[in-house]
């Protein structure tokens, strides 16, 4: 027999906020995944909306490659407002 696939669960805790990953579960199909997610992750009104995505469809970055992936942003201080030297009396900027 085939194993039930793994699903990642994302919950929107209230309208206006984005869905956030909260965990995963096994289910035979999307409908069951939604229902199980409701039963496991929203028993105490934690959510108003649920997304489930079968885990195999998520492409994740490789932590071993974090250097080349994220380090280039490190030496770009000019992307931050504090990089610019402006007089103290300047307001609203």
């Amino acid at each position, binding site marked *: 027999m085939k194993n039930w696939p793994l699903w990642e669960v994302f919950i929107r805790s209230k309208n206006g906020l984005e869905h956030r990953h909260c965990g995963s579960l096994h289910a035979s199909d999307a409908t069951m995944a939604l229902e199980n997610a409701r039963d496991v992750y929203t028993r105490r009104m934690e959510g108003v*909306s649920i997304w489930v995505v079968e885990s195999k469809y998520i492409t994740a970055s490789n932590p071993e490659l974090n250097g080349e992936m994220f380090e280039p942003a490190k030496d770009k201080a000019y992307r931050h407002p504090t990089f610019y030297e402006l007089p103290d009396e*300047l307001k609203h900027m």
Partner: protein
Amino acid sequence: MSEKEIKSLEEIFEKRIANDEKIEPKDWMPEKYRQTHIRQISQHAHSEIVGMLPEANWITRAPSLRRKVALLAKIQDEGGHGLYLYSAAETLGISRDEMYEQLHSGAAKYSSIFNYPAITWADMGAVGWLVDGAAIINQVALMGTSYGPYSRAMIRICKEESFHQRQGYEILLTLCNGTPEQKAMAQDALNRWWWPSLMMFGPKDAESPNTEQSVKWKLKRKTNDELRQQFIDQTVPQANILGLTIPDPALKWNEARKHYDFGEIDWNEFWQVVKGHGPCNKQRLDARRTAWEKGTWVRDAAMAYAEKQEMKLEKAV
């Protein structure tokens, strides 16, 4: 659905917004809400990417490496802003291709400010300081808008905008502390960008027919005139620090109102540019169309590659 059912759905909907609840993509919404948001969010997206064009002109001419990396980083951000906004609009059921088509055919509008030319280096300063400054005021007001994806895009964008304005101001500050010619260049840029920047807030409230509905839906949390006044009040002292003169002889602090009074905006010019007769309307649209057409082979090649990879995978299974 019967008319009565729709009526009651509309009432619940309006109540939710009045209670400061957000509307999310899968929630029921009146058709007019959907259409208005598609129009406004896609126009905003178009403005971000068309806004890259006047500044792109100066990347290779930036006077130092420091200025060049800052300008590049800013323009890169604007491209990202376009992406956030196009994605937010797509949650309402319009496709990216449809939106591009509307932009390229001239059916869609974008902010008129980008139909003015950027002819000197000081313009890069004035654009950052005034144009991004005005955009920030508009966008901060929109962080509280009722449509969830739009509001979240605004929050992200506002965080990124702050450096845009500061890098522009720093450019002008340097010019104003430089030679008399450099200072004159800064003044000239302010002279040309001041009035178009004021126009960025749109027509006067009395001539802005959508204001009431937009306020109700929190697409507008303040009116055009209120935002324009806020911009003037906070920008005049900034001009004073630079030692520049705002090109408006009627500009004067009003102690009773606690605001600056200012002169009449040339609304004829505003409508001319909106209707397509600004100095650069044609040039901007041509640049967008050319970029899109010249990018066709890249988009096609990427798709062909992806399909090939998929076929390989299928064969292997």
